[in-house]
């Protein structure tokens, strides 16, 4: 029973991964629209793009981690 609840919790936590996907999509999409407006400045900002994506993705990874913990460690 306890294990079943943990599995449900893991499933719920995995939703966070989807939320992170939205965040990453936002970052990349806004970068693209900005880059299309001003292509000459785009190359110098790719590092910033990756940092932004990394931050957004880290939170999704946290959610995934919680899911894993609930699946395997509780």
């Amino acid at each position, binding site marked *: 029973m306890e294990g079943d609840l943990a599995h449900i919790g893991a499933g719920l936590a995995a939703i966070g991964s989807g939320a992170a996907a939205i965040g990453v999509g936002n970052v990349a999409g806004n970068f693209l629209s900005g880059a299309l407006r001003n292509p000459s400045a785009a190359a110098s900002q790719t*590092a910033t793009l*990756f*940092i932004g*994506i*990394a*931050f957004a*993705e*880290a939170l999704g*990874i*946290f959610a*995934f*981690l919680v899911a*894993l913990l609930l699946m*395997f460690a509780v």
Partner: protein
Amino acid sequence: MATEAQGEAAAHGAEGGLAFHPMDQFIVKPLFQAYDNVVALGEPGSGGEGLTGLTESGHEVALTAKQALEVEAGGSVAINLFEAGIQQVHWYTITNVTLWMAITVLAIVVLLILGTSKRATIPNRTQSVAELAYGFVYKMIEDVTGKDGIKYFPYVMTLFMFIVFANFLGLLPMAFTTTSHIAVTAVLAFAVFFTVTILGFVKNGAHFLELFWVKSAPLALRPVLAIIELISYFVRPVSHSVRLAGNMMAGHAVIKVFAGFAAIAAIAPLSVVAVAAMYGLEVLVSFIQAYVFTILTCVYLKDALHPSH
């Protein structure tokens, strides 16, 4: 649940119906595992439930019913002492971690030393790649940290080369991904964290604390921001390490889960396609995570060298 048709799969893990557990690939195990023969059966019920046996060196191990019958019949049953939980992994034990880290070092030596041994002005392929890696990290530090960050170049290059090679080597089938372990990435991240903090105080003294005092914000907001900045500063090593380990572990676990689905014949083709797609994604992720780890190191280094916003 395990479909009866799989048969073999059920032999290993009853739960989940996978022929292998997706997390098995992350187990740290000794390269040289000890075996011992069972010489006698233990007292039934002495160590809790189940059948036990006594090995030559006097360890009490759990036995399956089949093994117990074998012992009773006078046959020799070899027990893997590591799997039985008797052989411990000490800090000096040579494990698969050691093996794959050694391979990482070897790969770096091959690329950066053997590849450049000719010192050619017109480089061959390997030397080009080595120079590309050098230029990539060098430019990253120069752009992000500034000219005064160049003297930390060997340090950052070490981190980058280790992570990128560990990530890529982890993608080989049957490989062990060292960077998927939080213990490894935490050491890397805390090394960066302590370096940056100490460097910040050594270089700037108390001015380093200005990092938390946002001068561009209204005065009333600054204490609140200071607290937020402080918290985010101390969360850095956690997110820094969990990002890398989590990404590597997630990708590899997902590949294994998809691979496990291949045991069901009807969805096996889909599973193969999914594994191939995930593998491609993982190749990308391997590099991007190494890049992100390195560039964040550079960003933190910049904070230490120029703390005022």
